[in-house]
């Protein structure tokens, strides 16, 4: 029986090889080869692409991206945890509606949602019109770092809420009751029981928000006005504008390494070795 079912995994293996392993290998190959004067990539091994990356300017872009992604992740956590908590404690009839509302925006294309923010944040947008109506001075909201962070929080917050909600809804109510019986007040119950048990969800949430946030290029382009380049924009520019696939690939590899390292660090905090955080 076992021999037969093994064949069913073949499409999966083919999928992984053609769409994940092979492209990753190409990226790696590009990153360690150089372009000749005609713009054709020849197999000439070099590390100059990586050396180039360690110029101050590019390293600054990397730190900036990590910083912005980290801020967005923290905001997502601060907003997402209470939201997940409220949803998991809601009455069963409301719970599904709340979850549905949380996922609903994701039915729409991310580009459209981001464009919508442009009309809200613009100099003559909704917020500034409202401020003007109240007689307050206008604010420069669009095309700032703040707008970029806002866009990331808005786009990625469902990825924080959902895993935390899953962890919280699995939580055994008896534990909370037992803690209360033993004299723990609500604060202590949350600190000692609920929060530690929801950690796997929190870790998954952090990873699932941080990863797309650190590599996004469309949000800083639309809401940040292309003024503060993030590492994703740099990679896009190198591929699309400069046609320098070798240097672009080297940065992509550095990105992948950073994501892998941050994931393995996060996994160290995953106390019970269960839950969605075990990605590595």
């Amino acid at each position: 029986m076992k021999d037969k079912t093994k064949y069913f995994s073949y499409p999966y293996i083919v999928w992984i090889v053609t769409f994940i392993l092979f492209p990753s290998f190409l990226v790696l190959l590009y990153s360690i080869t150089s372009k000749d004067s005609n713009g054709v990539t020849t197999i000439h091994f070099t590390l100059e692409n990586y050396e180039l990356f360690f110029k101050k300017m590019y390293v600054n872009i990397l730190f900036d991206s990590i910083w912005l992604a980290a801020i967005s992740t923290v905001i997502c956590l601060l907003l997402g945890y209470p939201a997940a908590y409220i949803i998991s404690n809601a009455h069963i009839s409301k719970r599904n509606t709340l979850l549905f509302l949380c996922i609903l925006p994701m039915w729409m294309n991310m580009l459209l949602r981001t464009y919508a923010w442009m009309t809200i944040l613009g100099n003559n947008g909704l917020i500034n019109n409202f401020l003007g109506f109240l007689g307050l001075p206008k604010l420069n909201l669009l095309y700032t770092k703040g707008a970029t962070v806002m866009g990331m929080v808005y786009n990625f917050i469902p990825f924080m809420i959902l895993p935390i909600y899953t962890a919280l809804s699995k939580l055994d109510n008896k534990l909370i009751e037992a803690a209360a019986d033993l004299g723990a007040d609500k604060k202590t119950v949350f600190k000692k029981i609920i929060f530690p048990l929801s950690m796997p969800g929190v870790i998954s949430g952090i990873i699932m928000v941080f990863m797309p946030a650190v590599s996004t290029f469309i949000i800083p382009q639309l809401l940040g006005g292309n003024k503060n380049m993030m590492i994703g924009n740099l990679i896009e520019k190198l591929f699309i504008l400069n046609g320098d696939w070798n240097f672009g690939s080297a940065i992509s590899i550095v990105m992948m390494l950073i994501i892998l390292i941050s994931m393995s660090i996060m996994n160290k905090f995953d106390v019970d070795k269960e839950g969605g955080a075990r990605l590595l």
Partner: protein
Amino acid sequence: MRKKIFLGLILSIIILSLTSCSTEEKETLNVLNYDIYIDKTLISEFEKENNVTIKYDTYSTPEEMYIKAKAGASNYDVIITGEYMIERMINEGMVNKLNFDNIPNFQYVGEQFKNQPYDPNNEYAVPYFWGTLGILYNKNAVDTSQKSWSLLWNEKHNQRIIMMDSQRDSFAAALKLLGYSMNTVNEKELDEAKALLLKQKPLVMAYITDGAPDIMINEEADMALVWSGEAVSAMSENENLDFIIPEEGSNIWIDAAIIPTTTKNQELAEKFINFLTSKEATLRNIDEVWYSTVHTEALKEVNEELLENHAFNIPNEDIEKMEMFRDPKEFIDLYSKRWTEIMADKID
């Protein structure tokens, strides 16, 4: 167990559906054009008339187009793009010669757009539209007594200036302000232009392509570096807007249709180009893209209002001072390297 079988089935179906070819016999034409650069009903019309399928693909800057065509993302049959990219592609042997017997509409192309340096003997390209680069501004906010590129560096308009996310165009403004050629490959001149653009960066509200007219119509910014057609469309929607071509001189560009060597159906591609450059198609495209036309017959039928607009009917004294982009060949790296560094510069 069941789950695994189910998963296996689903994946097999996905892979099969990806690899199986469509059995339809219809001929297809792969067209690559700028965003917002055609009256889209023309495409379905050509499809119906000739019983073909057109795969229409777009890009936002000529550099992006070049990568798409070069990387072989698709076997394009017709590409519409700017003259300096056409020059580069001809030099690299990426363009087929055209059979002008199949493109009789070429005769209506104005003489001043023929025999241009990018295609000196009119062998490869059929001009589509032409235009220039200038400043679209709000009359209530900007004092244009001095018609100069330096307007874009005026600190009074801090955070109210829109620049283009396009290296050649942004450098063109800076180089012309310095009094240099916009085709320079002199590193010292380019460094000066880069310093100028870096000095401008804190004043810039955003670097965008294609979105500038909307921002100007909503009066969210005071001025924007735009192509002439963008100015015409914005001015038609907000009468506070006007357009200047700075006195230091600007860029004149011609976008033309070419057939890359990747084509599998040259004759059909030529037919499409001819269709696109007919008088009727040109008039319909003008209503959509607002750029100046190269079609002498179509120009006679353009409405009065458009003819009075100096962003559409560009005055001769301005044209005389204009310079056409040339392909800088391998020196393009001098531009892209500097442009990436400008964009990567931190402002706060």
